[in-house]
């Protein structure tokens, strides 16, 4: 019994020491809003856990843009030049941790200007915190529609929202139907979406557009999160022979769909899905991934440009130079860089570090970047940049829609993967 007490007290001492140490570490960081000639931005981002690879793409994107802006002289406010710096914390890909760290950034580190985390889920966890402390956040990786229906005043997103992801595939199907002498209302759509908020947002966009063209939705399956098999859904596809198959289920959904489309020798004239790049379907399946349509926020072949990063192609080259381990530049990185550019211009337009003034400057953003036009709706989402649709042709991603930016014409109907 005495021993038990001893153990308990020893544990107690350790706990107390831990608390003290944490307080010391926290306390030592000074008010980091603007210090000397440095503006501190804060970000909780996923460096470990399930979003680690995308989280690291985003951090690289932030770092690249910050390095470029600092090289070019930094941010000029009130005639003085400031450098940008980011305080990062690893949110371990868990929303609760993200919210905690956002609070820490604001309350302990004194950060007044935030960059977003990776994924809609984390953004959803952090936005209430930044909103509570009236801290503006420019985020680049949370596309979920529901982020912009809650009346957040301090949240701004540079990317297109998720309901736009695959809506363009529906428009393309309508175009192709008309070109081939059919009515858009004859088009049959099969859908398989994972049962999570992001994928269901994508689905909502598809359903809206399908309604607009009066198309028929013949399959509407919602894949459970832990599902690694789509064969039942694809068996239905074989039986009903739709004109369009649309799949969204993160990386696993993309990989599973491509593999099983080939294995089951399913032929559908148009196949569109999200997460082609991050799922690595070209590397994994080669020719079996051909003619699949993939939406993207950004592509290096687009003709966007700005004075910081140059053109999209120049950004692509700069990124690969800074991070030679990349063969292709993920759009997650590009949009993260764009968020930093938005901050720079907002500070300069506000010409002050007064949070409200900076927030209003952010809200009035209307700028061209290498990532596309950025102009925020009152709700905070970017309404100026469209999604583009790329098709995998001969193992490469070619922009095929919208027509304004198309570099190649679409292959239709899709050929079944060779057995």
């Amino acid at each position, binding site marked *: 019994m005495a021993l038990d007490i001893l153990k308990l007290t020893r544990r107690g001492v350790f706990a107390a020491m831990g608390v003290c140490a944490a307080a010391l570490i926290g306390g030592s960081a000074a008010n980091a809003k603007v210090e000397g000639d440095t503006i501190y931005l804060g970000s909780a981002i996923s460096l470990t856990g*399930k979003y*680690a690879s995308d989280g690291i793409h985003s951090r690289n994107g932030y770092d690249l843009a910050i390095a470029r802006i600092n090289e070019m002289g930094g941010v000029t406010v009130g005639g003085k030049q400031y450098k940008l710096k980011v305080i990062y914390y690893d949110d371990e890909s868990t929303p609760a941790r993200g919210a905690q760290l956002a609070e820490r950034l604001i309350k302990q580190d004194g950060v007044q200007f935030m960059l977003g985390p990776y994924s809609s889920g984390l953004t959803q966890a952090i936005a209430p915190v930044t909103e509570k402390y009236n801290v503006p956040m420019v985020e680049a990786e949370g596309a979920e529609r529901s982020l912009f229906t809650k009346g957040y005043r301090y949240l701004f997103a540079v990317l297109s929202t998720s309901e736009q992801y695959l809506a363009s595939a529906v428009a393309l199907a309508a175009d192709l139907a008309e070109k081939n002498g059919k009515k858009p209302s004859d088009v049959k759509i099969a859908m398989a979406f994972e049962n999570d908020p992001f994928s269901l947002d994508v689905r909502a966009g598809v359903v809206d557009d399908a309604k607009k063209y009066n198309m028929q939705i013949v399959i509407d*399956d919602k894949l459970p999160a*832990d599902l690694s098999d789509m064969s*039942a859904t694809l*068996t239905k596809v074989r*039986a009903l022979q739709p004109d369009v198959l649309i799949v969204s289920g993160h990386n*696993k959904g993309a990989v599973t769909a491509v593999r099983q489309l080939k294995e089951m*020798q399913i032929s559908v004239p148009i196949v569109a899905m999200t997460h082609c790049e991050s799922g690595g379907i070209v590397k994994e399946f080669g020719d079996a991934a051909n003619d699949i349509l993939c939406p993207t926020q950004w592509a290096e072949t687009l003709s966007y440009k700005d004075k910081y990063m140059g053109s999209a192609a120049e950004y692509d080259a700069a990124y690969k130079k800074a991070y030679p381990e990349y063969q292709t530049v993920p759009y997650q990185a590009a949009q993260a860089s764009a968020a930093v550019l938005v901050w720079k211009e907002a500070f300069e337009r506000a010409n002050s570090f007064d949070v409200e003034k900076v927030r209003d400057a952010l809200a009035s953003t209307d700028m061209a970047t290498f990532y596309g036009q950025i102009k925020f709706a009152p709700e905070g989402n970017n309404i100026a940049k469209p999604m583009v649709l790329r098709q995998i042709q001969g193992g490469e991603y070619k922009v095929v829609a919208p027509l304004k930016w198309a570099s190649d014409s679409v292959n239709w109907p899709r050929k079944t993967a060779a057995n």
Partner: protein
Amino acid sequence: MLNNLDLLSLAPYLNVQLLLDGLFIGATFALAAYGLALVWGVMNVKNLAQGEFVIMGGYIAYYFAKDSVVRIGIPFTDVLLVEFMKPGIHPLWTLPIAIPIMFVFGWIIYKLIIRRVIERDLFTSLLATFGLAIFLQQIMNLVFGPDVRTAQAGFHTRLLNVLGGAVTVADIRLISLIVAGFLATGVILFMKNSRMGQAIRATAQDARAARVMGIDTDRVYAFTYSLNAAICGAAGVLVAMIWVIQPFYGVTYSVRSFVIVTAAGFGNIAGVIIAGLGIGVAEQYGSFVFGAQFQQATVVGLLVLALIVRQVQQGRKRQAVQ
């Protein structure tokens, strides 16, 4: 839903397709569940890290199947001792690699962790294996990263004409079914005929009596746990070839294993295999008829049904109070 039922009766070949796919899926589930039934039945340890063992097997297949540069040096220094190119082998040939690796791994885990919790109450072993599951997930995440991986077996698909329609059978799935069958038969024969198998069965029946008879139950437990890890590893190799692996996907296999073992009862090898295959088929039909969102609901619904039936049956029998 009714449309989908009509479809099944209008195009009977679809039934064949669903049935076949269900059996292919069920075979891997049955394999993992069989390992769990062993550990549960013999050691009374509910191994929550079952799925992680499966995914580990998958990563072993993934690693040996791809070309990679191997560098061996002294940690925390720049000293490089050996560097060579490891050519990838066909993922099917990683089975004889994954099985012994996982067996040894299971032995180590037993000696380090399981041995200490086996005599404790239910919650201790649940907590210990749950902790192990989280630990393994994070280690795999650190080593292999969070990307979705597969091992490419590169087989073809057969088109069969059955009941007026084309049914596809991917060779790799057929091979997996056969391999799973072989493994299950091997383990059953081993349990029936070998000394260790007999010792395991004796321990399962009454550990204390087995000890009295001179059986080293600690060794039996270690062997059982390692055998389970090896079986899971084999299942993992098949999973990597048929589906996808990712450090956090283990829970699917843990849950399925628990459902199967709960439905079948752990003393019942044939029951586990039938339940495994049955769950595969039920998932396919559930998904086809009600939509993929009801796939798991179908399975869990069936489990509830099985438990109710079992309860009623047992209620009829009079049992001695233990």
